[in-house]
């Protein structure tokens, strides 16, 4: 029974790897990358924009192309994160931290290269995971009830605090502020609006895109403009500089393995799994590294780990969709819609009734990853050259694309006003030495946390023991406690003791 999956993969590849489908995968990947690379446009808007192109094709071809678009858009988003510090989606935020630093040091090629290779590796592993462990992983995911999700979010938030390289308490504050921002909008249970100040555009909450672009991208532009001389990364045209060095490989392969592991497991969990994976990977690398001070200054593990985690999670997030018919996040919802349009009802039935389609889909995901590598490695040279364009020409372009990106996904001027507000806020945070990354994780997890907490207590009729009685929840909370003690409290004690002794 176990090695059936090799046979299945073979079926899949025969169906998917036709010349026609390979062509579609290539086009999808290319289009996805080009759209995804535009600052301000992340994978979700990119896929939504390009979706109609796939309508006219037959089911397998359209899925192959869609997979190409998806991975292309994701990697395009990572490219923007590294090059201009603008994350295209939640998972790429972490890539910004060290990836952009590397770009500023002239190592953009290495960062992009490592990201591409790490993603490819993770993609391969992820595909095998789906083929071999799909159903059991899905079964585990099905065990998660509200209390378990709550505890997972608590653990996730703690990792966000750890990944900060500044003061722990300020990072904790940022996470909580993010949580509060996430609560802006209409409360699901009562229908009352919270913190909307009467602005009806806020009733559905603050959109992710304006927040992130304002906080990261625009603030970065303003910061650069304040320098006496505009930033000019050292540009070296030789191929050697465009490729990760041997040392880079040595430093990052372990991070890739760890990230892939984290991503494969966390990606199966609905809602925020991929984001958690990226953040958790970064935190893990930082704590495991011999010299943690390198993080935030261009540590290549800070790119390799999260990028593998991201891509592995992107793969395994298909598992709930393909095996259970359940979309685990917004992108999966689009995929599901696309499949339904093609007449495929995702779920276990597809596996048995149309194995060529199911396994073809799985194979197409791997092909998509391959195409990504094929297309992007040569493109790295172009992107790096793009960086050498004088900044005074670059930044208006970045600004324009950001603004267009935000406006086209939701043609409401409120979005741009929000973006401006967050740009100012981001500037203030910059001046006061607070990091935005933990805030964004809090923002994403906040509403989920509250929802699950409330729900757990309603279902248990107010009994808080439910968090400890359920095995999954108890394990997660225990892990959180251990992490807090080992990674926050203890080092703080040592640090304050050191400072006290130095006095």
């Amino acid at each position, binding site marked *: 029974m176990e090695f059936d999956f090799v046979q299945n993969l073979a079926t899949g590849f025969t169906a998917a790897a036709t010349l026609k489908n390979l062509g579609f995968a290539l086009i999808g990947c290319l289009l996805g990358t080009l759209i995804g690379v535009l600052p301000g446009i992340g994978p979700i808007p990119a896929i939504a924009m*390009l979706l109609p192109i796939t309508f006219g094709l037959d089911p397998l071809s359209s899925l192959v192309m869609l997979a190409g678009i998806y991975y292309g858009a994701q990697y395009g988003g990572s490219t923007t994160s590294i090059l201009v510090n603008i994350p295209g989606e939640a998972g790429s935020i972490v890539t910004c931290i060290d990836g952009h630093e590397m770009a500023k040091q002239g190592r953009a090629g290495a960062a992009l290269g490592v990201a591409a290779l790490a993603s490819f590796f993770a993609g391969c592993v992820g595909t095998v995971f789906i083929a071999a462990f799909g159903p059991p992983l899905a079964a585990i995911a099905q065990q998660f009830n509200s209390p378990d999700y709550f505890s997972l979010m608590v653990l996730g938030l703690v990792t966000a605090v750890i990944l900060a390289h500044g003061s722990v308490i*300020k990072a904790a504050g940022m996470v909580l*502020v993010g949580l509060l921002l996430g609560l802006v909008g209409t409360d699901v249970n009562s229908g009352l609006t*919270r913190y909307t100040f009467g602005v009806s555009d806020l009733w559905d909450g603050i959109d992710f895109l304006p927040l992130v672009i304002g906080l990261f991208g625009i603030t970065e532009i303003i910061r650069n403009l304040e320098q006496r001389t505009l930033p000019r990364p050292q540009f070296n045209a030789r191929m050697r500089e465009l490729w990760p060095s041997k040392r880079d490989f040595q430093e990052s392969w372990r991070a890739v393995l760890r990230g892939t592991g984290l991503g494969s497991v966390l990606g199966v969990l609905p809602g925020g799994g991929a984001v958690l994976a990226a953040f958790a990977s970064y935190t893990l690398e930082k704590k495991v590294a011999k010299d943690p001070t390198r993080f935030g200054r261009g540590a290549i593990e800070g790119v390799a780990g999260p990028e593998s985690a991201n891509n592995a999670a992107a793969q395994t997030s298909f598992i709930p969709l393909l095996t259970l018919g359940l979309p685990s996040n917004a992108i999966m919802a689009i995929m599901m819609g696309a499949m339904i349009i093609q007449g495929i009802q995702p779920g276990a039935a597809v596996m048995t009734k149309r194995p060529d389609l199911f396994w073809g889909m799985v194979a197409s995901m791997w092909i998509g990853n391959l195409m990504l590598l094929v297309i992007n490695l040569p493109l790295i040279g172009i992107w790096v050259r793009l960086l050498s364009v004088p900044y005074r*020409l670059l930044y208006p372009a970045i600004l324009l694309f950001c603004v267009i990106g935000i406006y086209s996904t939701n043609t409401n001027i409120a979005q741009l006003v929000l973006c401006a507000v967050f740009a100012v806020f981001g500037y203030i945070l910059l001046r*006061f030495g607070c990091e935005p990354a933990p805030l964004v994780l809090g923002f994403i997890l906040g509403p989920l946390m509250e929802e699950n907490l409330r729900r757990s*207590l309603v279902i248990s009729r107010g009994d808080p023991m439910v968090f400890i009685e359920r095995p999954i929840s108890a394990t997660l909370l225990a892990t959180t406690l251990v992490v807090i003690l080992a990674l926050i409290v203890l080092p703080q004690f040592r640090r304050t003791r050191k400072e006290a002794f130095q006095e």
Partner: protein
Amino acid sequence: MLRIKSPQDLGAAVVFMAIGLVGVYFGRDLSFGTAARMGPGYFPIILSWIIVAIGIVVGLKALTIEGPRIEPVQLRPIVVIIAAILAFGFLINAVGLAITAVLLTILAAYARRDVKPIEAVLLGGGLAIFAIVVFVYGLSQPLPAWWGR
């Protein structure tokens, strides 16, 4: 006399306390409920108080532990960039992408003192054409290319 040992931390403390207090104040109408049946105000208000508490702790830290100074604020870049974003937002529906793209580019160029106006106009024109071709014609995005759509 209290000496501010870490200006940045003090700034952060102020921000935290302000946000926390805003959270408490604007959440006061929301019903609290009980732990078993949390009202819409339960989570946010508790959260806001914790943020205020963090603000106080950071404030104390600012008065006792040395920290970096706040770098001086330059008004020009931030004001110009924000203005450019808002200008785009208010004008796009009225005059279309072509003009707003050019306008945004020219305005953004003035964020630096060493502006080269002709360069900005040419860049704006180029970007406008690119944007229109890619977004309006290529991707059918709901952006008006010209005015009076």
